[in-house]
Structure formats: C-alpha cells, structure tokens
C-alpha cells in the first residue's frame, strides 16, 4: 500500500481512487476519492454513502467550484504532474485561505523534497512523496527556513507582523 507523509510520519493511504462512477452500489467500500466532474454530478448520491469522501482536482480546475461542498468533503487531492508545474499551489492556497477548507489537502504526482516546503506553506498537509524518494528525508525541507516574508496558509506569522511586535 502506498504511503502518505502526514504530520511528520508515514501512514498508509486508506483512500481509494475512483475514476469511473457507474452506480452507487458498484463503488468500493471505504473512503473514496472522485474526480471533480463526477462529484458535481453525483454528489446527492455520494453523500448517502457511509464513508468519508474526497475530491480530486485537475490542476486547471477552479477550486471555487467546490465552495458549497467543502463541509461534506474530508480530502482534496491536488496534482503536480511535474515538479516545475506550480498551478496546484494556487489551488491549495485558495482552498485554505479563500474558501476556508479545513480537511486534508494532499499533494500527488511529482512530489519531491525541494518543492514540498512551498506546498506546505500553501496549505498542503499530506504528501504522496514520489515512491523512489525517501519521504522522511524529504520532510527535512520543512526546516529549511525559520521565517516567512509572506502571510501564507501554514499559519506562520509573516516577518512583517513579527516586526510590528505581533509576536
């Protein structure tokens, strides 16, 4: 089973990715993740399930389309198709800071050490680190910088506020 880095430890991924929705009865048991378009089409059905629900966003989809549903979703999965593609960073930031999503935001795809700190600061809190990399070693990147110039989603006070004497 693939591993997820969360809160500094590696845990088993308990979510099943569902790509093709046919009928409620044909879905696997347990917690499932569905693509955004299927969520929007079948959410009335899906919420009847006795499991947690997650939504997968392609990185060109607007997270605001989930605005009314975030209370019913426990997980949003974001995609980083290559480490140089930072679109999902804006999605994470919008989910956390604009839309107030409090569930898990999970980074998938080309997730590597040198991008993970940016992801975390934008609100990602779970990382499906690339399987050929040492996820715990990668987590050391979170300690690279003590301070932040920007107000961001990881809750750290930006330097401008510390300078003002707010902390």
């Amino acid at each position, binding site marked *: 089973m693939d591993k997820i880095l969360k809160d500094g430890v590696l845990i088993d991924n308990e979510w099943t990715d569902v790509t093709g929705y046919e009928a409620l009865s044909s879905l696997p048991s347990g917690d499932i993740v569905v693509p955004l378009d299927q969520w929007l089409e079948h959410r009335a059905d899906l919420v009847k399930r006795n499991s947690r629900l997650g939504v997968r966003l392609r990185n*060109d989809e*607007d997270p605001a389309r989930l605005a009314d549903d975030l209370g019913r979703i426990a997980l949003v999965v974001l995609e980083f198709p290559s*480490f*140089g*593609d*930072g*679109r999902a*960073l*804006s*999605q994470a*930031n919008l989910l956390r800071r*604009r839309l107030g999503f409090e569930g898990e935001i999970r980074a998938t795809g080309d997730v*590597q050490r*040198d*991008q993970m*700190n*940016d*992801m975390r*600061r*934008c609100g990602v809190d779970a990382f499906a680190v690339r399987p050929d990399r040492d996820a715990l070693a990668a987590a050391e990147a979170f300690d*690279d*910088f*003590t*301070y*932040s*110039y*920007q*107000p*961001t989603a990881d809750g750290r006070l*930006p*330097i*401008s506020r*510390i*300078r*003002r004497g707010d902390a």
Partner: protein
Amino acid sequence: MYQYDRFDHQMVRERVAQFRGQVARRLNGELTEDEFKPLRLRNGVYLQLHAYMLRVAIPYGLLASRQLRKLAHIARRYDKGYGHFSTRQNIQYNWPRLDEVPDILAELAEVEMHTIQTSGNCIRNTTADHLAGVAVDEIEDPRPYCELVRQWSTFHPEFNWLPRKFKIAISGGAQDRAALAYHDIGLRLVKNDAGEIGFEVMVGGGLGRTPMIAKTIREFLPKQHLLSYLEAILRVYNMLGRRDNIFKARIKILVHEHGIEKIRELVEADWEATRDGALALRDEDIAGFKAFFAPPPYETLPANDSGLAQQLESDPAFARWHGNAVIAHRVPGYAAVDISLKTGVQAPGDVTDDQMDAIADLADRYSFGQIRVNHRQNLLFADVRQSDLHALWQALVDLDLATPNNGKLTDIISCPGMDFCSLATARSIPVALDLQRRFEDLDHLYDLGDLTLNISGCINACAHHHAGNIGILGVNKKGEELYQLLLGGSSRNDASIGAITGPGFAPDAIVGAVEDVLAVYLERREGPEETFLEVYRRLGDQPFKERLYG
C-alpha cells in the same frame, strides 16, 4: 539604503545552507541534472558554453561601497578578475566553479547580498529608475516599494513555480527610466486628481521572440494595495498562463490571447477578495521602508558652483565629459554622474576587480558611499558635489572610465552572445567593439545626437534589441552568422518596438549598414535637434531600406 535586520540575515543564511545541501545532493547523484537545474537557476547558477555562470542580484541597482568591494573580491578570488553588469541591474560572473558557489553565496550574505531568484520561473529581481531619489522630475522615490516587493517576492511559495520568469520594474519619475513597458509588470508612481500618490499598473510587456508593450490594467492603485494587487495578477498568471509551450508562457501571451479587459476582470475579482487582508500595507509600514531611503546628509550649497564654472572654461576635455556624463540633481550644488562601462576596450558592462575597488573608494570619497547600476549597463554616482566633479573626472580618466558617451551610439547595450552564452546564435561583443571603434571620434558621435543601440546574440533579446533606436540581432543562417537590423525602437514613455529592415548582414557588413542608416539620418534631419528616432518616425523606414538594399 535598506539594512537587513535579523530576519533578513537569517533568510539568506538559511538559503546558503539549503543550496549547499542541494549542491551536495547533486554531486552525490541524489539529484539528476534535470532536477537540479531549476534549483541552481533559483540561485542564479547557469550552465554556459564554457563554464557555470553566476548572477548576483543587485536589488533595484543600489550598491554600498562595501558591497562593491565584495563583488571585486569575488571576481578576484573565484573568477577571472572581472564581472559583467546586465541590463537588469545584476552582475554576472562567467567562470565560477559549482562546488565553490555555496562559498560565494556565504561571502555575499556577509554584505547583505544574494543570488535568490536571479533566474528560474519565478519572480526576479525588481528593477528601478537609476535616478531614484535624486531625479528632478520625480513624483516619489520608488525604492521603498522595490524593497517591499523584494521581500514579498522572496520565496513566495505560491509563485515559485510559474509558467515562466516574471519581471517587475518600478519608476518614480515623469520620464520612464526603467523600461516599464517591457516588463511583465511595470509600476509607475503617479499622482491622481485628488493629489494622492499611487501606482499606474501595467502588465504584459516583454521582448524575446514576441515583443509586446505592456498594457495598463489599472490607472490608479492606492499604495496600501500594492502587494495584494501584485498577488492577484500573479495568481491569475500562475493558474492560467500557458505551460504547453515555453515560447508562449510569459504573461504577455496570456494578456494577448485573452485581452486586457478579460485579464483585468479576473485580476480585480481575485483582488476584491484579498485587498483588505493580510497584505494591506499600513501607513506606518510604508513610512518604515521610506526611512531607509531618506536623503543623505546634503550640505547647503549654492546652486551653481563658481569653481566648476571656471574649470569648465579652462579644461575642454573636462567640459566635454561634463556635458555628457553629468546629470541634473534635485538638490542645489549636487549632480549625478554617469560612469560609462562602454570603454570600447572591454565588453559593454564589463568591469575589472581593480576598477570595482577603485570605484568603491571614489564612491566613499564623493558620493556617500553608494553606487548605482542602470539598465544600460553603466554605473552611476547619484550625489556628487559640483565642486568635486573635476577631481572625480580626473580619477575616472585614470581608471579608463571617463568615456563621455552616455546616451550616444557607442553607449551600446550588448548581451554576452556566443562568446559565453549557450543559447546564442551569433557573437555580439565583437560587433559592439567594432561599432565603438568605428564611432570613436567624439565630434562625429555627438553630431549623431542621442541614440540607443542594442545588440542581442539571439532571439531571446537579453539586450532588448527591439527597444533600441537601432537594434541588432545576431542569427545563424545555414551555419553563417548574420545580423538583422531593426530601426525605431524605444523604451521610454513613447515606447515602441523596432522593425526589421530586411535581410541580415554579414559580420563584416553590419557596421557599414549602421553607417548607411546614419548617413540617411544626417542627410534628412531638419536640424541637429531632430533625433534619429524622430527622423525615423517622420520618414518611416523606406529611405533607410532604399539605402541599405537599393
């Protein structure tokens, strides 16, 4: 100037440690070159034709003398004894060793300098008007805002992996001296009808393969919203900018494809949600940054120094330099001085370690210990007493830095071209040196009036060839170097993009082609006051083409 506090110091120190780790992981094979490349680029490290190249940020072009001495030391200790100032107010070293780069970064950090985000698809060094704080036509000093933008953009987690590089420039004068129209975002300090000062925001300018002039997205942005508005533009760009084609990835293409109205709508909608949030600047915040750029302790002096008048009368060589290199100053009795790095001996923008040390000493003696870099690859002393001008000039003559060609044809902007750059299709430095030799005679040079000439060694246009009154682009046709000629560009308030005259010229014909163009100008101008650009705009390109190809 800005002084680091403990937070800024810690940021750059931690950056050095991070990069040291990344270099080690590259050298032990943990990182592939493909993975390492964007990391080294974010620290200004390029792989060029013969060696690595290191680009050091000079935020908004401002240097203290101790910083310039450090740059001299790095040139001496880690490089071949010189550095190259670029059009974006940075300095580049052409021969550092990768394993020594972390040590260079540590040395830079000692003097509050860094290479952060000097390359890569992220927000680059913010540039400014080189006459900031001293220009006669200034509305407000742009530097406090540049520093605010520098800090906001440093390690911005959301905008560290953009579709393409992103450049911001800020100008505070009535005249644009920062080429705003050719930046991804250009910010012009303006006064509105109510007398308040804010920013006109322009977006989507750029050169390269598809040159475009930036469009105004907002006529007036109150200062307190500077950062939230930038963030809204960057967010729209990060999410919608094209990533399928590197040549279509700049924000200029996004603006072009969607239209400025649509982009404005998206940006304003995003901004509405954040404008009064955590990024809003309070008056005290702005005042705190302004205090760093308070005027130096000027003396009360007469507006016109009587000794200077005498020196000008008795020393024609000095008078000639004075007429060219000395720029009017806001404060009576002071002047700004352009230090030409277009000597005709070294490549445009190059300066040796000894010259850097000597310039630092002169800055201490004559200009409050500060030096500026302008986007035409020259240096500038901003605050020289008129009574010191003659002594300063003599010292510059001894250093070979008194070529009085500021704003003239031989004040050429040139990129490194094929001599260094791995992307080049042709050489550019030899063409620049040829032209400088051909137009050495100062009477002839002055007769040609104010003229900008920019040479790029490939379509990437690092020397802004489209923005020169005369532009030269080196291309490679079937293994032969050829030079295309462009006429009519400008990077000032009246920004325009130069047009190609026709087929390119061989290396031994390009200087003659420039001479032909100038001959037409001299014949057709209505008087010595009419500049080359004005004549070109009046006549169009026909008479020039006839002479070149007829």
